[in-house]
C-alpha cells in the first residue's frame, strides 16, 4: 500500500514537461491531480520510473472564454470548473456533471485533463465532452495537434494521446441560443462512478445523446440522435430515444449490476435527460 520508488520531476512550463516525457520514452507518466494515478501507484498497479508533476505549471490551470469557446487548461481542478461563473453561464452541463464526480475533497485535486486522459469507462467528463463536441489540444515533441472528442476516447482507459504527448487544453464550443441539455446518472452511492450516465445536448441544428457505463467508455447513441432529429424535440421523441439508446447498448453483467438493470437504466436515464433538455430548450 505504499508507492514504488520513482524519480520525481517538477517542470515549470509545458515545453519542459514535454521534453521530460520525450527524454524518458515510455517510462515517464504525467502526474495531474493524482486522484486516479496515486491509488494505482499505492496498489503497485502502475510502476512508472519517472513522474512528471504538472501541478506547478500555472499556465495549464487557466479557465477562460476566448472566441466564444470555453478553454479549460488541462490542470484546471474539477472543483474550480464546477464553481466558475462563466462556465455556469455558458456550459451549465459541466458543473451539473462534475457534481457527480467522487467527493469535494477529490474534486479539489482532480483535474479535468486528468479525468479525460485517464478515460475511466464510467467517468462523467469524457461523456460530457463527447456530447459537447469538445476538442482536445495535445502537445508533443513534434508540436501541437487538435483531436476531436470523437477520436480522442478510444476504449477503456485508452485515448488518442501518445505516451510522449501532454493534453494541454480542452476547447468547448459555444452552445447556440436555444440549446437544451440534460445530465442523468445512477450510482450505488453519492460519489461513486456511474452505473450508467447519460448526457443529452439538444441544439437547434442537431442532437447529441451520449451514454457511458455500459461498455468501454462514452458512446454516441446515433440511433437515439436520429430519432430526435426526425421526430422533433418533444416528450414522445424522448420516449423513443430512450428505447433506441437501450437497443444500441450491450452492457455485460458485472459485480456492480446485472446487464438487464443497466439496460433499463439506459432507457430511463436517456428519457429523463432528454426531457430535461427539451424543457431547457424552451427557456
Amino acid at each position, binding site marked *: *500500500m505504499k*508507492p514504488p520508488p520513482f524519480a520525481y520531476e517538477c517542470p515549470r512550463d509545458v515545453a519542459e514537461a514535454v521534453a521530460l516525457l520525450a527524454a524518458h520514452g515510455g517510462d515517464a507518466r504525467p502526474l495531474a491531480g493524482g486522484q486516479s494515478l496515486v491509488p494505482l501507484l499505492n496498489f503497485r498497479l502502475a510502476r512508472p520510473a519517472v513522474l512528471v508533476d504538472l501541478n506547478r505549471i500555472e499556465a495549464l490551470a487557466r479557465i477562460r472564454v476566448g472566441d466564444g469557446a470555453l478553454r479549460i487548461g488541462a490542470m484546471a481542478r474539477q472543483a474550480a470548473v464546477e464553481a466558475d461563473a462563466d462556465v455556469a453561464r455558458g456550459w451549465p452541463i459541466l458543473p451539473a456533471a462534475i457534481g457527480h464526480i467522487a467527493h469535494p475533497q477529490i474534486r479539489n*485535486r482532480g483535474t479535468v485533463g486528468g479525468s479525460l486522459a485517464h478515460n475511466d469507462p464510467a467517468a462523467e467528463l469524457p461523456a460530457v465532452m463527447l456530447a459537447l463536441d469538445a476538442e482536445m489540444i495535445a502537445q508533443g515533441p513534434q508540436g501541437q495537434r487538435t483531436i476531436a472528442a470523437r477520436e480522442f476516447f478510444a476504449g477503456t482507459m485508452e485515448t488518442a494521446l501518445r505516451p510522449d504527448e501532454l493534453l494541454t487544453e480542452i476547447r468547448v464550443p459555444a452552445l447556440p441560443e436555444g440549446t437544451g441539455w440534460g445530465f442523468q446518472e445512477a450510482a450505488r452511492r453519492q460519489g461513486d462512478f456511474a452505473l450508467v450516465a447519460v448526457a443529452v445536448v439538444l441544439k437547434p441544428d442537431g442532437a447529441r445523446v451520449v451514454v457511458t457505463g455500459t461498455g468501454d467508455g462514452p458512446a454516441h447513441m446515433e440511433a437515439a440522435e436520429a430519432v430526435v432529429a426526425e421526430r422533433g424535440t418533444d416528450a414522445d421523441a424522448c420516449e423513443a430515444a430512450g428505447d433506441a439508446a437501450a437497443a444500441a447498448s450491450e452492457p455485460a453483467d458485472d459485480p456492480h449490476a446485472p446487464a438487464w438493470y443497466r439496460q433499463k437504466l439506459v432507457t430511463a436515464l436517456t428519457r429523463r435527460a432528454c426531457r430535461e433538455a427539451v424543457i431547457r430548450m424552451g427557456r
Partner: protein
Amino acid sequence: MAGQQHTVRVTINGEDYEGPVEARLLLSDFIRHEAGLTGTHVGCEHGVCGACTVLVDGAPVRSCLMFAVQADGASLETVEALADGRTLHPLQEAFRREHGLQCGYCTPGILMTLKPFLEANPAPSDAEIRKALSGNLCRCTGYQQIVAAVRRAAAMLRGEDP
C-alpha cells in the same frame, strides 16, 4: 533518480517543518511520521475512506493521494489545529455532546472536511450535510449522530447554543 531525497518545507498548524523526503513519501506519512502529528489517520490509502483528510492551503484533500514533495511551500492544517489547549473547538464539542464518534478513527478526517464546509455554509440543510460527508466513511458510530453533531456544531458556530 529513484530514491533521491528532496527537501520539503511546509507549515503545519502555523509551525514550520522542513526535511529531506523520498519522492514517494505520501503526505499522510510525512504528517504522521516526520512531523509526528498522529491525529491524521490512515484508513485505506487509496482515496476511498476520507480518514486522512487535511487542509492544504485551506482546501480539504486526501493526504494519502498526495506526495509530501508536492506540498512544498504549502500551508497545512490538521485536526491538531482545532482545539485551543484544553478547550475543544465547537466542532469537537458538538461531536462529543451528540455522540458523533465511537472509536474515533474516522473523526479527524470528518472534522477537517467540515471545518471549511461550515465556514462556507453556516446553516446547511440535512441533505447538504449528508452530501458534504459523502466522502468520509464511518464504520461504527452511525451517521444519524454525526449529522446531529454537525447541526449542533453549525448552531454553536453561529453563536446559538442549542
